[in-house]
């Protein structure tokens, strides 16, 4: 069996394939072609040498959804709402997260006010109809939207999460009146209360729907044209994959699929190596992203804001919880008006790039600092494809940082790295310490071109004793896609006191969600089902999701569920109130269809554990450079052991080991580091 993953990123399109019978990985990389993404996928497959007809399954992650939104190139979108709520989408929550900023911006609506139409109807929170649906008002809304030439329509009526009947009828009428428009109904996308957030999620779906749908169809047909007849799966933000049909209906679900692959890979590889608890750390060109995996399960956030919390678009669909900081290889070091040294969030990006890339960059970056300190070899970058300008990097750091701060160039380069490392360590703390987890109970998995360079320093900062550098760290997201299962998340608002919760009714809601899930599942045979109840103390707003079993609901295990909530609360906030009443707000169901497991090959026992050469490197606080042994990762065999200080080079990255660090190469090829002094 041949399985292939293609991940379109901002700069590169990465491919990782695995040939099950030959026990062989295939990798390829090509430049992303922003205007012809489908062509980019085909090019990458061609470059890999795999015949399209031989591929059994293709998993695809793409930036198409998020770019369509950020570049505002989506459809002309109309919105149909309950009478009186025409402006809910524009007003949002009325807040200004940047409290002192007189120049703040609210989100910029994707459906304008003049394409927002009100209809006469009203449902209550109980689901009861307060005012019946006036069909004439729907007909009128359709007529107006048709006259305006909309390409897509979102329908979001108040309390449709509780009773979607009016939304269904209105939707059917829209389909009939405007047969060629793309249609999104809020209860299909998100059955949770809070109208603005549900409306925003639905509008985003409608806005990107026609373009993403077209993309998925075109991908499918052009892959077919070159002979592909296997299964196509699309990566989604929750860490699972979905069929092209589901992706076409709910493109909003693939919005943040970019960083997700690497986190899935971290989880799977950690588990395989006996580390069920890992923190994934991916450092690329502009940012570093980190995420926590516990018992092999990535952490999900219930929603997120595309474009940031202050001015972004809320999308309340589960997404793997990622903390991102502006620290990547291209992040610029600078001094502010009072002489404090700062790193990022501005990035030199790929163009002009760091000074050492010779692309016209003039601002010193993290990559330049690594070149100056010797961690990156100017003559062996990306396998020697690009000879780095070490003198330029040195001169830039000297001029922009060292001189103004009165330091020597080496100290300045080191300071740049240390500040970046402390920022990244704060991000790792945010996903762990701040959620009640001790990072020392986790192994760090490093990926991205710049991840392995800094990972041991970050681990030491946080006293994390174990670091894993996986295979293909610079294609890690694509690798993760090979390993992802199919996943569909469902939510229903179900508001009541836990004390009087009707478990029969809850079981009925669960079964309804489950049967809906089955319709979307391709791998339904041995699917895994996860149920969570969103609970809180009466009077609170924020909930915690408490995992429960189908059994527990069937048996009505009120006390056990209650105790589990108190314990979870204690873990997260360090206090609890076991005497206070608890209420339930939502029930969540995740349906996970298991994809066939790949058996990755073992590395040959025999290898060369000798340095290919030595290079002068300034490590840690040493005043003088040390002649650091340099190993080639491709030459290392299973069981190879290396003591730091050392550099381990491979195509897209370099792993840096400090004096007290020790590493072993696992039989499956990963570098496992014991961090000294942690």
């Amino acid at each position, binding site marked *: 069996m041949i399985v292939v993953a293609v991940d379109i990123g901002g700069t590169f399109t990465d491919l990782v394939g695995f040939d099950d019978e030959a026990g062989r990985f295939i990798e390829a990389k090509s430049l992303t072609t922003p205007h012809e993404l489908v062509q980019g996928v085909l090019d990458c497959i061609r470059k890999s040498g795999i015949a399209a007809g031989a591929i059994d399954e293709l998993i695809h992650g793409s930036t198409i959804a998020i770019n369509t939104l950020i570049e505002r190139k989506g459809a002309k979108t109309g919105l149909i709402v309950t*009478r*009186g*709520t*025409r*402006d*809910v989408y*524009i*007003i949002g*929550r*009325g*807040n*200004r*997260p*940047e*409290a*002192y*900023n*007189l*120049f*703040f911006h*609210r989100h910029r609506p994707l459906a*304008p*006010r*003049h394409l927002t139409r009100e209809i006469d109807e*009203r449902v209550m*929170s109980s689901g009861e109809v307060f005012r019946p649906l006036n069909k004439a008002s729907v007909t009128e809304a359709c007529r107006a939207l048709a006259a305006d030439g909309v390409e897509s329509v979102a329908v979001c009526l*108040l*309390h449709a999460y509780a009773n979607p009947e009016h939304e269904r009828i209105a939707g059917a009428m829209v389909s009939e009146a405007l047969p060629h428009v793309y249609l999104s109904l809020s209860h299909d996308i998100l059955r949770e*209360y*809070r*109208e603005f*957030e549900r409306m925003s999620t639905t509008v985003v779906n409608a806005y990107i729907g026609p373009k993403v749908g077209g993309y998925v169809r075109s991908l499918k047909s052009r892959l077919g044209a070159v002979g592909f007849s296997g299964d196509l799966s699309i990566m989604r933000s929750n860490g699972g994959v979905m069929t092209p049909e589901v992706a076409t209906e709910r493109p909003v679900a693939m919005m943040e699929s970019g960083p997700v692959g690497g986190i899935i890979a971290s989880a799977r590889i950690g588990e395989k190596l006996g580390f069920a608890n890992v923190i994934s750390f991916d450092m690329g060109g502009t940012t570093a992203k980190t995420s926590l995996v516990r018992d092999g399960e990535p952490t999900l956030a219930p929603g997120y804001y595309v474009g940031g919390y202050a001015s972004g678009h809320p999308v309340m669909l589960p997404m793997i919880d990622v903390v991102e900081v502006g620290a990547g290889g291209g992040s610029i070091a600078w001094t*502010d*008006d*009072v*002489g*404090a*040294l700062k790193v990022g969030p501005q990035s030199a990006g790929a163009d002009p790039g760091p000074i050492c890339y010779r692309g016209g960059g003039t601002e010193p970056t993290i990559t330049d600092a690594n070149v100056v300190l010797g961690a990156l070899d100017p003559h062996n970058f990306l396998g020697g494809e690009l000879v780095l300008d070490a003198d330029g990097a040195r001169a830039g750091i000297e001029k922009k940082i060292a001189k103004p*701060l009165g330091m020597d160039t080496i100290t300045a380069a080191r*300071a740049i790295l*240390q*500040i970046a490392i*402390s920022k990244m360590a*704060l991000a790792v703390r945010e996903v762990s310490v701040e959620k009640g987890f*001790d990072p*020392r109970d986790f192994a760090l998995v490093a990926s991205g071109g710049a991840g392995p360079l800094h990972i041991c320093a970050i681990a030491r900062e946080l*006293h994390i004793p174990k670091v894993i550098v996986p295979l293909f760290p610079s294609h890690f997201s694509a690798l993760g896609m090979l390993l992802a299962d199919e996943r569909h998340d469902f939510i229903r608002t179900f*508001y009541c006191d836990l004390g009087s919760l009707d478990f029969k009714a809850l079981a009925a809601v669960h079964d309804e969600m489950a049967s809906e899930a089955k319709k979307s599942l391709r791998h339904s045979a041995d699917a895994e089902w996860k149920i969570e109840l969103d609970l809180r*103390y*009466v*009077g*609170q*707003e*924020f909930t915690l999701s408490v995992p429960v079993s189908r059994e527990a609901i069937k048996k009505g295990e009120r006390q056990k569920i209650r105790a589990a909530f108190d314990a979870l609360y204690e873990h997260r*906030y*360090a*206090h609890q*109130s076991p005497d*206070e009443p608890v209420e339930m707000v939502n029930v969540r169901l995740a349906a996970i269809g298991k994809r066939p497991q790949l058996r990755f090959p073992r590395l040959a026992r025999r290898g060369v554990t000798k340095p290919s050469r030595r290079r002068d490197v300034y490590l840690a606080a040493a005043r003088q450079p040390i002649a650091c042994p340099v190993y080639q990762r491709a030459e290392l065999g299973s069981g190879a052991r290396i003591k730091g200080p050392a550099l381990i080079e491979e195509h897209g990255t370099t792993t840096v080991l400090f004096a007290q660090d020790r590493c072993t190469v696992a039989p499956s090829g990963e570098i496992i580091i014991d961090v000294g002094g*942690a």
Partner: protein
Amino acid sequence: MRRALQGDGKKKPLDAVTLEVIRNALPAIANEMAADLQRTSYNMMIYEVRDFCTSLVNTKGELISQNVGGVSHFVADLGVIITDAMKRYGKDGFKEGDVIITNHQAVAGQHLNNIVIYMPYFYKRELLLFAMVRAHWIDVGGMSTGFGAGPSVGDPWLEGLQLDQLKIYEAGKLNETLYRVLKDNIRFPESSLGDMKSQMAACRLAVRRMDELFNKYGRDTILDAIAQIFDETERKCRNVVEKLKDGVYEASAFLDDDGVKRDEHLPIAAKVTVDRGSMTIDLSGCSPERKAAVNSRTYAGARVAYKALTGPLEPVNEGSFRALKVIIPEGNIMMARYPAPMSGWSMIVPTVVDTIVKALGPAMMDRVPAGHHGLLGGAVVFFGVHPKTGRRFVVQSIEGGGWGGRPTEDGESGTVSVCQGDVRNASIEGIELKCPVVVESRALRTDSGGAGKHRGGLGLDTCVRNLIDGRWNFDHPSREHCPPWGLWGGKPGTHGEFLLRLPGENDFRSMDAPHYPVPVDSEVIVRTGGGGGWGDPLQRDAALVRADVIEELVSRDAAERHYGVVLRDDLTLDETATERRRNALRSGRA
């Protein structure tokens, strides 16, 4: 405490890197306290209105760090509580495990709902700082329910329970008597005491984080870094002010009245002196203290304005205000003497901020917007007893208004005031899940934004129908006679109000009364003002005016009257008529 997080605690030299690490760590602690408080609180004033602040304050009362994003008028306002506490208890008067509770107005200077909880932090038995949380409790007895008592409450005893720097925990032991007094004298003890628990948890979190930091870097390094961070922050603010032309800048405004004495404006005046990087904001010209409960002891008006103009996106610390001198004489409405009533303490602050900003308009033409709605939101407050559950309920939401046009763009619509940051309205569905009302609409008010080259943002109409008997609070300040001002030729925005229509009535009428009983099926519109316009409306691009008409933000009639833009019936632009109309308007002015 586990092994690895402990260090030797010895002093390490202060270098650029350590300084930067500590600079990032301190606000992160305050923000983490804030995030946990918000997620565990029991009252919408905390989880939606974010009416709280979390801070670290040293023993001199200097602000080490504060959360960013919540209610901005709490900026750097906890120092006075510590200077007072140090006087009363002395530096040896605190023990590990103490928790102090206070809201007393002689020092705290705000309404009694704002309960401050704080804990001392010791490093190696030395008292170094305090972790503090001020948060709005939903009730503290008296007339305080909900957003707090209004301006008509005559004194602090009527307002609620007064707590004067009391130790609710002493060395870790609960003062049971005090706890019972609290529990028996507030209406929603589960909610408020739940919030107290969250406040204490946030303080304990800060203590843990400070321990990690001090153990890693040592006492002297951290204290040196804090001093240097203060200095650098001050320098940054001076750098901004140094670029302004030295001089004295003045502006004034007023509220229609103080809510009690109805025939008299409530004057607000700001005199700002810029002198080589230093700024003095003199608010002596504002009203003397009032009989109405609109008094306070606060520098918030001056500080919020200064912060917004000098470094809006930077974290706050003591250095943020060192280059600012604020003059408010004792006996002023914002430096009122106990027991002047303070239950409506913050009501004037947004207008004070806006007046200071307006004064500086000529000095900072590129950074000063026109006036915003200037009030702490349209307050939705309807309460009663739920017939199904027998539980007391309060419908609460803060509806935003229009912001002034800005030097480069229009003002935002339906947004909370300059004193409120990440303050969110209550969702319609959330309100209706809990309370027996129907929110009939939440809508932009066409033509409420002041005309200008850059238009003012729009105010809102939020209409609520009650399904059971209950009481509305219509007690509110008004800016009808001093509407949100335009700047550089821009027109003022329109003001807000409360409107009521009883069942069977045809028309809405304007309302102004506290705790007003209404029968089932009444409708109330909470109306908020629009922002002022920036610049001459005749200079606004006609295409933008047309777009506003298509969006129904501006009516066709107003487009013609204020902007001189004439549209045909199909809403295409009639360029000839527009030119003619604009010329006529221009010559009419001359």
